[in-house]
């Protein structure tokens, strides 16, 4: 979230699309209802009328996978009716920038942008750049009337998204589209704030990243980024998925979103040079120019502090990806399926149910030599070898199940969706003989290191020179009891030598006050620069519990701690005009007093934009402004509607390019039947989507095993309209079979008007939906909806497309 949960109460318009907050983030409705009491409008856009829709002022249905068309129509409406904030665009975005004249768009190239290489399924992006002046700074037209200006190109791109076209793609009635556009577009007026709450309903598509970008463009056009009650808010689904992302349990990034080293970056200097963005604009802060400080401090925290600058502080000890190597989820299980992965940890995760195309995942697990499952309960991953249709005797995988402690049986911090890192305490000892995850890691660290010390082996240095200093060591050199505070402090970082920074004297061993003090010379450590300030000389800031709210807008700056540097609303310098005066006088986030900023922690402390020495407000981007034109994207600098991999129509109504041209296709590349897909195919005529319910959580391991929750939603279900149920002679409450090209599941039919047939391209399209929280280890509840979903991912993130695919539904024989 750019903003945070309590801030939702500051909104005048709340759009919930691609998420279902009433069901999956119920407490958010405290703030939604508070906003509504003050007159705010709640809009729910969803293929199905949900518990969120039930509370909404306006509900609009859309066919799964057509969000860009829906939102593209809104961009068109906003521009046509001039609802955008010109001043805001001028100060905060690249809307004024001039794009190279040879740049071409889908309207001209049948759905493609210029530079597409059909063989490689990749774009040559050379035409996607800006015209630059002699200094290398992008040229701009403040009037935004130049035909090559970003705003004019945006207008041209989305002029194709008229109401009739959009409605024929999304299946949303035209009057509903207009209603939504009108209400949401009204937030372009100064003093009106609109927010978007989205989740996996946007990310889990082959166009997931562009779904979010389309909305980000809308928020920029309407001046909704940086202000209270605005922002682009991803509602994260797990208690610490924000923190686990920040600490980068992901193949492509190291803690603090630093890129994973790759083979061509053979030393630290090359890593820094190649991964640090540059700018020639003197008004761009280009915050990532601090990359060197952050990577060096990370290396100092990870490895033996005796390693010197000449030894690159141990850079060599980090594993490196091959250039172009993608080790993301779908690739990981693809390699496992092919027998290329031998050992596997499933630490607090149940991919046999959560992985798209779960049959492939389950088959892949059987190819492993060994598997370690760390969990609270038995689950479909740990016990895959005795799953439905599996002959245990033929499975050679050795499996270890390590029982973990629950949240209140351990101490540490977790980071919520609003980026608040909150400390929690241990109430009781782990149940029975279960253990803290950190205790297991400590044991594995020690035992593996000991084996390498005793026996040697392949390149032991990263293991033997890893720093692991988190508590009192016994005579065997093993930490007896791992002190989680010591880990928190290492994440924050220490001075490793006496040093004067910014006129302040620090001693070796002092905690670093905040990331502005980190050094590139090896004199500081910080396991994760983004968390530098979380645990410093003031103590454990994550454990703070003050309810002071001097802002009056619910920032609670002394409750816990949030990254970065306790900034509660990101991009908040876009909430003021060039003089530093808040755009929204009623709900100011920051304001310039004439000498300094007050309110929230500003995005960089530079003076307002009309003063000398200022820096532009979007400090993390090299151009200093937000990207309406986003050349980093794989499939185009502007969003464009493409159909899901599996869709009910033969053609993309907008162009001859049916699906996202930049996605990696598994079926064609590998020819594995397991990855098969069927689009516009009579055998699988119904659109399907997956979702969660209030009463369950993720794959259900922590809710199917919780009797009170299982009681409320005891068995898997499929929701379908009375029209479809009538066609298929399906009665409410009867078990039916849902099948896709990859698998089948059984579920109880819930026949409900909450699903309505769509009119798409003049034909009736039915959609059904089912939850993915069930699994066979719980008797008689059904199995995961991911047995149906395809092996395909977003072009940028490779997040699987589990929100739109095709199925058949039939009575059980």
């Amino acid at each position, binding site marked *: 979230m750019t903003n945070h949960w309590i801030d939702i109460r500051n909104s005048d318009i709340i759009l919930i699309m691609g998420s279902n907050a009433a069901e999956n983030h119920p407490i958010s409705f405290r703030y939604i209802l508070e906003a509504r009491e003050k007159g705010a409008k709640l809009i729910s856009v969803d293929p199905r009328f949900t518990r969120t829709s039930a509370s909404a002022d306006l509900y609009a249905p859309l066919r799964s996978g057509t969000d860009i068309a829906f939102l593209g129509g809104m961009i068109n409406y906003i521009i046509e009716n001039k609802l955008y904030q010109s001043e805001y665009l001028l100060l905060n975005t690249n809307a004024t920038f001039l794009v190279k004249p040879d740049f071409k768009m889908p309207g001209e190239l049948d759905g493609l942008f210029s530079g597409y290489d059909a063989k490689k399924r990749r774009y040559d992006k050379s035409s996607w750049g800006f015209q630059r002046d002699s200094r290398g700074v992008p040229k701009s037209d403040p009037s935004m009337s130049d035909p090559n200006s970003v705003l004019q190109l945006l207008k041209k791109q989305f002029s194709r998204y008229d109401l009739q076209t959009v409605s024929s793609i999304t299946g949303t009635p035209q009057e509903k589209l207009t209603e939504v556009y009108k209400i949401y577009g009204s937030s372009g007026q100064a003093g009106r704030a609109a927010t978007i709450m989205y989740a996996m309903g946007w990310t889990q598509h082959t166009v997931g990243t562009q779904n979010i970008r389309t909305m980000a463009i809308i928020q920029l056009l309407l001046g909704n980024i940086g202000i209270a009650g605005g922002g682009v808010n991803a509602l994260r689904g797990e208690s610490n998925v924000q923190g*686990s992302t920040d600490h980068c349990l992901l193949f492509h990034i190291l803690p603090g979103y630093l890129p994973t080293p790759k083979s061509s970056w053979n030393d630290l200097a090359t890593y820094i040079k190649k991964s640090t963005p540059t700018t020639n604009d003197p008004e761009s802060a280009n915050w990532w120019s601090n990359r060197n400080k952050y990577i060096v401090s990370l290396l100092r925290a990870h490895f033996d502090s005796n390693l010197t600058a000449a030894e690159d502080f141990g850079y060599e000890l980090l594993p490196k990806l091959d250039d172009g190597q993608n080790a993301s989820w779908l690739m990981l299980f693809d390699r496992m399926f092919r027998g290329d992965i031998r050992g596997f940890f499933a630490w607090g995760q149940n991919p046999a149910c959560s992985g798209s195309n779960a049959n492939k995942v389950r088959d892949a697990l059987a190819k492993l030599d060994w598997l370690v499952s760390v969990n609270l*309960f038995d689950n479909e991953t740990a016990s895959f070898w005795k799953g439905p249709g599996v002959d245990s005797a033929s499975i050679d995988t050795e499996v270890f199940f390590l029982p973990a402690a629950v949240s209140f049986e351990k*101490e540490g911090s977790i980071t919520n969706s609003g980026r608040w890192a909150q400390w929690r305490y241990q109430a009781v000892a782990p149940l029975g003989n279960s253990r803290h995850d950190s205790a297991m890691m400590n044991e594995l660290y020690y035992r593996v290191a000991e084996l390498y010390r005793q026996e040697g082996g392949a390149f032991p240095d990263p293991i033997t020179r890893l720093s692991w200093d988190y508590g009192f060591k016994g005579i065997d050199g093993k930490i007896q009891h791992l002190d989680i505070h010591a880990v928190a402090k290492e994440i924050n970082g220490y001075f490793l030598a006496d040093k004067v920074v910014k006129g302040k004297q620090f001693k070796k061993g002092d905690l670093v006050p905040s990331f502005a003090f980190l050094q590139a010379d090896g004199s500081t450590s910080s396991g994760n620069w983004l968390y530098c300030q979380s645990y410093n000389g003031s103590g454990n800031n994550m454990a703070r519990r003050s309810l002071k709210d001097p802002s009056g807008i619910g920032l609670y700056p002394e409750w816990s701690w949030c990254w970065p540097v306790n900034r509660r609303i990101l991009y908040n310098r876009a909430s003021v005009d060039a003089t530093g005066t808040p755009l929204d006088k009623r709900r100011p986030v920051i304001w310039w007093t004439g000498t300094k900023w007050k309110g929230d922690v500003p995005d960089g402390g530079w003076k307002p934009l009309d003063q000398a020495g200022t820096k532009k407000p979007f400090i993390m981007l090299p151009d200093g402004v937000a990207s309406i034109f986003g050349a980093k994207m794989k499939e185009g600098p502007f969003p464009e509607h493409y159909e899901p991999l599996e869709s009910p129509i033969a053609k993309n109504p907008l162009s001859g390019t049916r699906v996202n041209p930049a996605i990696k296709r598994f079926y064609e590349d590998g020819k594995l039947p397991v990855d098969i897909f069927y689009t516009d195919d009579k055998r699988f005529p119904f659109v399907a989507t997956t979702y969660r319910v209030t009463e369950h959580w993720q794959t259900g391991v922590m809710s199917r095993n919780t009797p009170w929750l299982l009681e409320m939603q005891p068995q898997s279900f499929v929701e379908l309209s009375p029209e479809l149920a009538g066609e298929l002679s399906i009665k409410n409450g009867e078990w039916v079979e849902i099948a896709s090209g990859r698998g089948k599941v059984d579920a109880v039919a819930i026949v409900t008007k909450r699903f309505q047939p769509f009119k798409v391209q003049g034909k009736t399209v039915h959609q059904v939906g089912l939850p993915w929280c069930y699994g066979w280890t719980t008797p008689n509840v059904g199995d995961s909806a991911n047995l149906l979903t395809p092996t395909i991912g977003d072009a940028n993130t490779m997040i699987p497309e589990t929100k739109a695919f095709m199925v058949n539904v039939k009575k059980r024989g």
Partner: protein
Amino acid sequence: MELNRRGFLKLSGGAIGASIVGIGLKPAQAYAAPLAIQYARETITICPYCAVGCGQIVHTQASDVINIEGDPDHPINRGTLCSKGSSIYQLRHNKKRITEPLYRAKGAKEWKPVSWDWALDQIARKLKATRDATFMTRNTRGQVVNRTDAIASVGSAALDNEECYLFQKLLRSWGLVYIEHQARI
């Protein structure tokens, strides 16, 4: 009448979040059972389900959990919870919790309980054997890569930050690059 208790926990820094409930009981009413949490120890925690980050109070007595409810001092949830948050008592009082390490041998049809020491030693040995057999110092182009592509890990958004950090540090020290978790799906 102020029904939410306020200020029962005034915590800062690393103080242990526990205290005795300070509720003044009215003269006993014949019909009402005594308040079960009257003498309980209180510990503050954050809900393990979604990422709203609601505060909870765990009431314990004689080293076991007797009640868990919303933390009235938490600015986000102000003492309230959703149905999942209200259910976490059953994460503790739950016959299905696995509380001993288990092992499944090649071809076996059932789990068998094993000791921690044995399980951890076995995992360390297998990890080393796989790593040693598959470790790549250089790739096919001769560039230094120092990794293994034959061991992978998924998870964990369920861990605390400190554990996430330790986990990635450990995995990367072993040379893994196939490191993924819930954020990707």
